């Protein structure tokens, strides 16, 4: 079905039908990009990683199609490289100081905690500004104070509540991130419920405990069967099995939590008059995808990574619909107009993605 936004649909009065988000890339194509990225990155001792990142993102953004229009990734490799060099510089100073002067290192870790909110904001700002749909860039307007409260202060205090507060903190973090996103001049609105986060966390914890008990049972049974005193091999086999199994279980649990939370966020988010979102990602299906992805990556020593990533992105796109509202034609890009001003130019010195990943 070729779904394009036609004026006729907009005039019908009632809500237009939702458009399906589609991912048109393939694992085979991406494998080539991925392996060449790896090769060139190794050959250039990491310098090419900036180009690799841009190429990766361009591939995934450009193959994500909504309503007949694709997304664009706009960052240039030089911006990524500058940010990465800055981050590596900071990291080198920190790791040298903390391994040679452990006491000074501990003080420095504290100072870095003050930098964390700024870096998170900067990273979100950058990645939003580098995302474009229909010639309109996204933007992020979060403030330092709020980021400090949500990312540093509240998580720290939740330790003293034995993490009982943590789901509520996670809800605040998601609300902070999403309600500060703008599509051009239109803000995203979200209404998140703490109880959904508690329900998801509780479910994942109970499942985790259940699986752990099952595993202990299976292993003790297996241990009983082969009673060979002084047999080293069985112990080693157990160790070899535990690691992939652990990864498998963690990925599955992660999938359940992420699916529940993603559905909750998208189903309660909208850009007024522009778009409404729908997500119906099935937790058990997504869990199975993530777990088998992890298993495939481990079993193929990493070679299955491109296939796994495409498979995951495809599942996410399949579960997402967007109702494009009539106002979608009237969004203006405020950021681009302000770009010419001198203040923005000065701010652009730090317009880099300050992160290692």
């Amino acid at each position, binding site marked *: 079905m070729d779904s394009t936004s036609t004026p006729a649909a907009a005039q019908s009065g009632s809500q237009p039908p939702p458009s399906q988000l589609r991912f048109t890339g393939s694992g085979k194509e991406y494998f080539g990009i991925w392996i060449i990225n790896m090769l060139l990155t190794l050959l250039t001792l990491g310098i090419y990683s900036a180009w690799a990142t841009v190429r990766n993102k361009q591939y995934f953004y450009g193959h994500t199609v909504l309503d007949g229009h694709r997304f664009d990734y706009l960052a240039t490799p030089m911006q990524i490289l500058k940010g990465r060099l800055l981050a590596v510089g900071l990291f080198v100073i920190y790791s040298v100081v903390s391994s040679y002067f452990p006491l000074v290192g501990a003080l420095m870790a504290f100072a870095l905690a003050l930098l964390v909110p700024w870096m998170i904001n900067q990273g979100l700002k950058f990645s939003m500004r580098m995302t474009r749909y229909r010639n309109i860039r996204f933007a992020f307007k979060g403030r330092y104070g709020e980021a400090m409260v949500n990312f540093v202060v509240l998580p720290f205090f939740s330790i003293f509540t034995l993490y009982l507060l943590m789901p509520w903190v996670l809800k605040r973090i998601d609300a902070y991130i999403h309600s500060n996103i703008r599509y051009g001049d239109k803000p995203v609105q979200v209404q998140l419920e703490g109880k959904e986060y508690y329900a998801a966390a509780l479910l994942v914890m109970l499942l985790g405990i259940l699986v752990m008990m099952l595993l202990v049972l299976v292993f003790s049974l297996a241990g009983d069967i082969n009673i060979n005193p002084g047999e080293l091999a069985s112990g080693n086999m157990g160790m070899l099995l535990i690691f992939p199994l652990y*990864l498998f279980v963690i990925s599955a649990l992660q999938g359940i939590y992420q699916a529940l939370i993603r559905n909750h966020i998208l189903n309660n988010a909208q850009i007024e008059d522009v778009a409404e979102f729908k997500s119906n990602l099935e937790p058990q299906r997504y869990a199975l995808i993530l777990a088998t992805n992890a298993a495939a990556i481990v079993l193929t020593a990493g070679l299955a990574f491109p296939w796994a990533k495409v498979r995951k992105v495809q599942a996410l796109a399949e579960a997402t619909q967007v109702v494009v509202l009539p106002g979608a034609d009237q969004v203006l890009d405020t950021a681009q107009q302000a770009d010419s001003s001198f203040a923005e130019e000065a701010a652009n010195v730090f317009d880099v993605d300050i992160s290692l990943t």
Partner: protein
Amino acid sequence: MIRGYFYQPNSSRVQESTARLSDSRVAIYAGDECVYETTPEALSVSAHLPGQASELIFADGARFVPLDTRYRWPFQRRNSALLARLESNLALIVCALVATPVLLYVLLFKLVPTIAVTAVQAMPEAVVEQMGQQSMVLIEQTVLSPSELSGDQQQAVRDLWHETLSQLGLSTDKYRIDLYRSDHFGANAFALPHGQVVVTDELALRLTEHPGALRAILLHEIGHVERMHSVRLASQAAVASIAIAMLVGDMDIVAEVVLGSGSALMDLQFSQNMEWEADNYALQQLERLGYSGEDFAQALESLALLDEEQAQSWLKYLSTHPSVQQRIEHAKNYASSP
């Protein structure tokens, strides 16, 4: 005529349109109306990616994206598609599959240690001094408590230490010994980069009857200091974590776990090599000073007995020390061969 979408600058407005190319002009038509006209020199073409349409970007930010993802513009520069050609070249992909693990190995196991060693040689004395003292403050506060040995017992260890130092001709300003009680370490000795050697009460007690064995252990620890092992480990860890952070870049958590355990293995191998180096240092010095490698073998044997009482067998595989049995054999062979 190429069908596609025309995106207006700084606006979400989109028009279904067609691009018409003539000799030196590109014109975009919506229906019969010309909405944009320019020359190929005044526009740029987006980077070529597999499976994606190649779009025209105009000077004011307007764009035209063809519907046909395989369509390529006649004025598109050839080298803009170079990467895309590499990425879909089967021969190159096969080469990359072979070369990547090899390069990864060379980088992590050859280049990183070399850089680490170079960094160590450039390290000023004052830095090493600071590193040792600060580490000691942390260790002392967390896992050490004052020695409970009698004055005589402590003096015996110190006498042995001073005798060894003067035999080796090493400075007593740099090298010092301290005794501590420690439940964490058990019977053990360790060296700090600035020349401080710590011996636990339990070890000293265990070897009271065998001063030769204790001397061999002290020599092993001096070997760690002389070869700057802890400084090398620290700089190795720093260089490796930077290399891994650069490589992991766009990978998922799973890849991080895989690479992370690779780096842990690398650390393990590195520190095992260091143990062999320190062993060889001790054996060389024992021989030079006219003692026997048997002393060292004896020291290891008495510690191995203790080990068997405590440790679970599989833990040894992951221990930073090479298998004790191998080391005992090595020490004995060293004594017999010239």
